[in-house]
């Protein structure tokens, strides 16, 4: 089995897929770093001084102003109220939620890329794992070896797990080292609040507690890794089912983007919460953001994703081991 995985990793590596993914991340991170840097500078200019308390106070006033508008939709009003309570909590406890520093950048970056950017990168790595063998015809040589089909597929899946882990690690490493050049590398011990939960319009703070940022970031990367694995597994299934890598990418891309759109409009369509793509924003549960559909919890989202991944794996293995190869 080690030898089979070795084969798959060799092919992945020589196709330069991982290399391209790392290049994409390495190109995007400076872009976002610059954007965040500019944002910080503009706010600073607007406020006239660098004190974050004034800035946070300003944000709270902004939010309050928006809330007083009568044309607000109910959903949005609810979200703003939660956000307001959270900001107020930070201010009262003298905690700067946006303290600059590479770890903060990592955190913000990963929270914003968990629903689309990272799944896309994983998709690029996973899309042609099986379909390229089918479209290139090499599957005929691969399946006429004295190795059972399920072992071949398993070796490909293990290679996928390893490359997903590699991508997530590389994203963490690159976002830390590159943004640190601008923001500095400190800030690991900064306390952050977590444990927010929402019930109706209320922000429940009973479970809120402080954890150091490194622990917070670690938790978020754990969730990101899980999301990437699920997306990778589903892409893998499509790659088994379809010969065309372009079709695999197209379907996955449509699903992911549909997820991003749906998350903004499904608050009253309750059964949509069983779709995998509206459950990708796992980090929101840690930072206490409103969920797209009421009643979704971290445990719920994890189980939905797990169920989808398990289903995908079962289908992939069943089809691959039974199928006639033409």
């Amino acid at each position, binding site marked *: 089995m080690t030898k089979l995985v070795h084969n798959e990793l060799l092919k992945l590596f020589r196709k330069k897929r991982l290399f391209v993914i790392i290049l994409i991340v390495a190109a995007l991170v400076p872009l976002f770093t610059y954007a965040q840097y500019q944002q910080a500078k503009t706010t600073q200019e607007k406020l006239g001084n660098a004190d974050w308390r004034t800035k946070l106070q300003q944000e709270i006033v902004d939010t309050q102003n928006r809330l007083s508008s009568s044309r607000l939709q109910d959903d949005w009003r609810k979200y703003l109220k939660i956000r307001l309570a959270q900001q107020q909590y930070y201010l009262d406890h003298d905690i700067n939620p946006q303290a600059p520093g590479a770890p903060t950048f990592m955190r913000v970056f990963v929270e914003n890329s968990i629903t689309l950017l990272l799944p896309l990168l994983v998709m690029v790595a996973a899309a042609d794992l099986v379909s390229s063998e089918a479209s*290139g015809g090499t599957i005929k040589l691969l399946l006429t070896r004295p190795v059972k089909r399920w072992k071949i597929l398993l070796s490909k899946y293990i290679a996928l797990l390893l490359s997903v882990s590699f991508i997530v690690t590389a994203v963490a490493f690159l976002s830390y080292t590159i943004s640190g050049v601008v923001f500095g590398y400190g800030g690991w011990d900064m306390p952050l609040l977590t444990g927010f939960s929402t019930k109706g319009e209320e922000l429940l703070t009973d479970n809120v507690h402080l954890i150091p940022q490194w622990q917070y970031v670690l938790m978020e990367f754990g969730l990101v890794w899980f999301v990437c694995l699920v997306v990778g597994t589903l892409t893998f299934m499509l790659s088994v089912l379809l010969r065309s890598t372009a079709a695999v990418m197209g379907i996955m891309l449509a699903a992911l983007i549909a997820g991003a759109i749906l998350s903004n409009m499904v608050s009253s369509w309750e059964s949509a919460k069983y779709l995998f793509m509206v459950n990708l924003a796992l980090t929101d549960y840690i930072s206490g953001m409103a969920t797209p559909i009421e009643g979704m919890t971290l445990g719920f989202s994890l189980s939905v994703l797990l169920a989808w991944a398990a289903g995908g794996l079962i289908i992939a293995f069943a089809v691959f081991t039974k199928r006639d190869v033409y």
Partner: protein
Amino acid sequence: MSRSPALSVKNLRKSIGKKEIIKGLSFELYPGEVFGFLGPNGAGKTTTIRMLVGLIKPTSGSVHIGGKNVQTEFGEAMKDLGCIVENPELYPYLTGWENLEHFARMDSSIPESRLKEVVDLVDMGNRIHDRVSTYSLGMRQRLGIAQALLGHPKLLILDEPTNGLDPAGIREMREFIRFLAEKEKLCVMVSSHLLSEIQLMCDRVAIISKGSIIRIDTVEALLSEQERVVWNAEPLDQAKHLLGKVTKVSEMEGKLITLYDEDQIGNWNRLLVNAGIEVKEMRTKLPALEDLFLELTGGEHID
């Protein structure tokens, strides 16, 4: 025969939906022989070969390679098999050597030294460390054979091995296949839609049409039986009439065609000459596959 067959196929069938595309094939192949699998495109050659190598599951019937059932003892059966199905499709982004390493890793019984052996066997030493994407079709074909030979197979299945090769390449391939059968005592099964190719390379041949084997025989028997005589005679009508009395005769492009019969051919000629017919040309002709087919299938069209 007393030798145990390298490949044994019993009543192999495959249906797709309600349509039966392979209708009960049975044959046995022995070590040291080159077996031709002949049929027009769409006759079921490739589907059959894919069932032999385990890529397609037969609807019923069994395939044994070296005595092991492909369905139930897949791993064991595959150790005795080397194959190229359709084109030799290898990983273009790896070098030839890396491709061989890749496939060698999939069978722990292949020692490191075997790689060098097969590379020498197909005479690819000087280009083996180049990427496959830079290879010509002939070189890919040779690398394909090298990977097929990695595991010391008893049975080598090659699907259209001379497809796309130039004349020198075809000749080289033919000699190589004969060498493998005669010196290495392999059983080689070669599929083709070209009779001339099968004729030069194979000992025995099976002719398949619309999913059934219509004939299995040695190449000599098949060809001599189907050999034709072309007559160019003047006046044509009279010659046709006379020949028609003694044998089956057909007319094509202003010439007459009869079966070849060594004992009778002189008599037929004398018959014509005595009747004052001028025989301008008389030559034997090996049938084209198309003719052979029309003959064997009773005029049914090839599709």
